[in-house]
């Protein structure tokens, strides 16, 4: 039971870290995808969306190749931190960021695309600098996109299995997240424990989606004063 609680804590930490890191990482990318007319946009869009269609084991396999201690990135990471990226929490975070990228980028891209140029032009004529326009016009208008992106990213990270197993294995307290714990309970025929965790995930998933539909579904929310 304490092992399961540890898995719940680790999963929440992984999902929260991934979500928090993806907000600043995905925002400029989503903005560029929403506004750019560059021919390379569709290529980048396809790359970002790859995790949606790629089997998680394939992604996990390539991440393992790219991030293992013998690779350029993996060895550089060891030099910098002394830790390996494979079979570690840091590696899981990187894998989760890549795996969940489309879940953050796509809602933000849609939200940014909905901000008309005409509104940004009006703000500019009122003296708002590009940074000011971003913070005080774009962000308030993209609130729902951020909420949707955060909830979906968090929920998706909580449910990760294939990539986590390939990159992190099953190390209690380090890489043993909820989905791995459920898998292990099933493997050892401990169905009661598996039920407990699976039911918890089921409820959590429903709650996440309800949150998105309930609060991100509002047509607009008015800024007063």
């Amino acid at each position, binding site marked *: 039971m304490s092992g399961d609680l540890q898995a719940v804590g680790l999963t929440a930490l992984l999902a929260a870290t991934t979500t928090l890191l993806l907000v600043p990482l995905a925002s400029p990318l989503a903005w560029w995808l929403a506004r750019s007319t560059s021919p390379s946009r569709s290529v980048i869009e396809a790359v970002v969306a790859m995790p949606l269609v790629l089997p998680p084991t394939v992604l996990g396999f390539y991440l393992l190749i790219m991030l293992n201690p013998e690779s350029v990135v993996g060895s550089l990471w060891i030099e910098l931190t002394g830790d390996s990226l494979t079979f570690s929490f840091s590696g899981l975070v990187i894998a989760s960021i890549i795996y969940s990228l489309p879940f953050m980028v796509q809602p933000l891209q849609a939200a940014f695309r909905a901000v008309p140029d*005409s509104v940004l032009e*009006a703000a*500019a*004529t*009122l*003296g708002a600098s590009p940074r000011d326009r971003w913070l005080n016009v774009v962000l308030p208008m993209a609130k729902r996109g951020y909420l949707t992106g955060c909830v979906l990213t968090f929920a998706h990270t909580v449910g990760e299995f294939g990539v986590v197993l390939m990159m992190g294995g099953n190390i209690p307290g380090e890489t043993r997240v909820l989905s791995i714990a459920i898998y292990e309970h099933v493997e050892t025929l401990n169905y009661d424990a598996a039920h407990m965790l699976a039911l918890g995930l089921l409820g959590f998933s429903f709650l996440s989606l309800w949150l998105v539909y309930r609060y991100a579904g509002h047509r*607009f929310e*008015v800024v*007063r004063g």
Partner: protein
Amino acid sequence: MSHQLIIKGSLRRARFTLDLDLDVDLSRPLGILGATGAGKTTLLRVIAGLERDFSGRVEFCGEVWHDGDHFDRVPTHQRGLGVVFQDGRLLPGRTVESNLAFARQRARKVNAAVSYEALTEALDLNHLLSEPAEVLSGGERQRAALARALLARPRLLLLDEPLAANDADHRQQLIRHLAEWLSAEGIPLVYVSHAAHELAQLTRQLIVLERGSVTAQGETHVLLEAQSEAIDSVARPVAAVVMSTDVEHSTATLQLDDDAAGAVLPGERVLLQRELTENSGLGAALQPQSDENEG
């Protein structure tokens, strides 16, 4: 103080090429007249720095705003503008009050002759302050946008058909207030409109645009006298007629073909124009609203 505006250059558009060589002193308000598609709005956008493809030079008060292909030598947000677009363009998701606050927070630090309270009162906005921008009518949006532009305490006011969506009563009031404020604040004005009476009341000099080129430039009242001819020469056939009420205390109803097209206030001059098709013409008449009035 001189408010020299110099615009030289060109901009290619699908329907016309804006080709300008303008040098005007905005110490006297400038009107821009022209048919739809003549390039009036594009000209305002060039002045505002919103047309990246304009190739040429824009100068205001000796300050180079746009030079060659460097459209943002002075970027839009640093030009000290007040702009009212045709559609108002209030910031969505915000109340009217929040839209006005957005302008006030970024306004130039100058002593203003007209207060926030006076503006909202005169523009009939007080009952709308807590309303979201999305629920306003076209006329209300334009009035809020006008207040917002003036609250930015601009050094140059660019108005693009700013009253078109308001009814005749509001329009007349707004013209009167606007004339007072501009005179009190000394703000240079560039005013785009189809309405000859608005241009006559608010501007002293006028340019007429046709398919992107200036075809006439001079005193507003002189050019307006000849406006029918000016408008006749646009690319598509247009019929135009100027009508005015001479009586001092009457209001007339304008009959355009068989439809009543709106009220004409005493002394108001109205420009009618209509695109002609093969078998159509323009029939217009002023009908007095009461027996003793004449149109």
